């Protein structure tokens, strides 16, 4: 009978030696793709309008952002944020020139200005911004929107 009282066979353990390698690979992937927010919002987070005729902004390094919205302490009027401080409309040309200086001649033509504006701001403010952009010949703009039904904006 002793023949049947064999020692219990142990399950062979899965070799986990390569686990760190796999994890490191994933880690490097996320480290490379992650983008930390460069700018802190000094205004209330703009609630972007929705639209369906949208295009993707391809190269993020070639995009300058202008934020438009209400200030955090609810003072009336639309506030404009360039880089990380609240600015006046008249600061836009220098903002654009600064951005241009960081890029080569070739890339300057491809620079796009993305306007991230809240749904409630007035067209007048946007129009002032556009006028300033025209003055410095920064003609490519993009009205930042969410993907969705445009009729949801107005109800």
């Amino acid at each position, binding site marked *: 009978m002793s023949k049947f009282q064999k020692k219990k066979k142990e399950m062979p353990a899965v070799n986990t030696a390569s686990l760190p390698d796999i994890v490191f690979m994933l880690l490097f992937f996320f480290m490379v793709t992650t983008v930390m927010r460069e700018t802190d919002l000094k205004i209330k987070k703009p609630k972007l309008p929705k639209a369906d005729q949208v*295009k993707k902004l391809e190269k993020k390094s070639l995009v300058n952002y202008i934020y438009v919205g209400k200030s955090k302490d609810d003072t009336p009027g639309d506030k404009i944020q360039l880089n990380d401080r609240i600015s006046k409309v008249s600061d836009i040309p220098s903002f654009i020139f600064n951005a241009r200086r960081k890029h080569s001649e070739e890339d300057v033509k491809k620079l796009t200005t993305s306007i991230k504006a809240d749904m409630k701001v007035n067209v007048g403010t946007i*129009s002032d911004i556009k006028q300033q952009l025209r003055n410095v010949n920064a003609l490519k703009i993009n009205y930042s929107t969410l993907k969705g039904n445009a009729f949801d904006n107005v109800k």
Partner: protein
Amino acid sequence: MARRSTPEINAGSMADIAFLLLIFFLVTTTMDVDTGISRKLPEKQDPNIVPPVLKEKNVFEVNVNRNDEILVEGDTYMKVDELRAAAIKFIDNGGGTAESLQKDNLSPCTWCGGDKDPTSSDHPKKAIISLQSDRGTSYAMYISVQNELVGAYTDLRNIYANKKFGKDFKDISNADQKKIKNDIYPQIISEAEPTK
């Protein structure tokens, strides 16, 4: 000189450390893509240049006032959801005859599916949409109107691409896209200074 073998470092916890970092980056990473309506602003004009005279029938006037109401062609009150159809009807009208288009080196629009109404636009290349808003118009309304006007062109280009190539506009080759953009349905949306 007896050689002492260096004790190996226990690397068992390496995976844990790596996992911790991995989770950190997983959480902080954002993969959002920025989307939006792309437009090109007109270049600054020399104030001495006299703007070319346009025939009124070739201009589709859209007015948005400070109460977010839309007035089309100076006489029709419209909702946003009717705007696209109206714009398509105007652009795709193609009412010009061979003689009237000859001086602009254009031939009558053969691909237009419109009514050929002589009191509306002559040719898609001559049809201009003029958008006039007020400084008090809300940005949400403004974007909706822009979206519908751009949408009108997108729809027309899609119809044409489907008829000619059997595919949507975005799926045809770049050269064909360019041809449609330049010669078939060029997007001409002009924005006037907002009223005070």
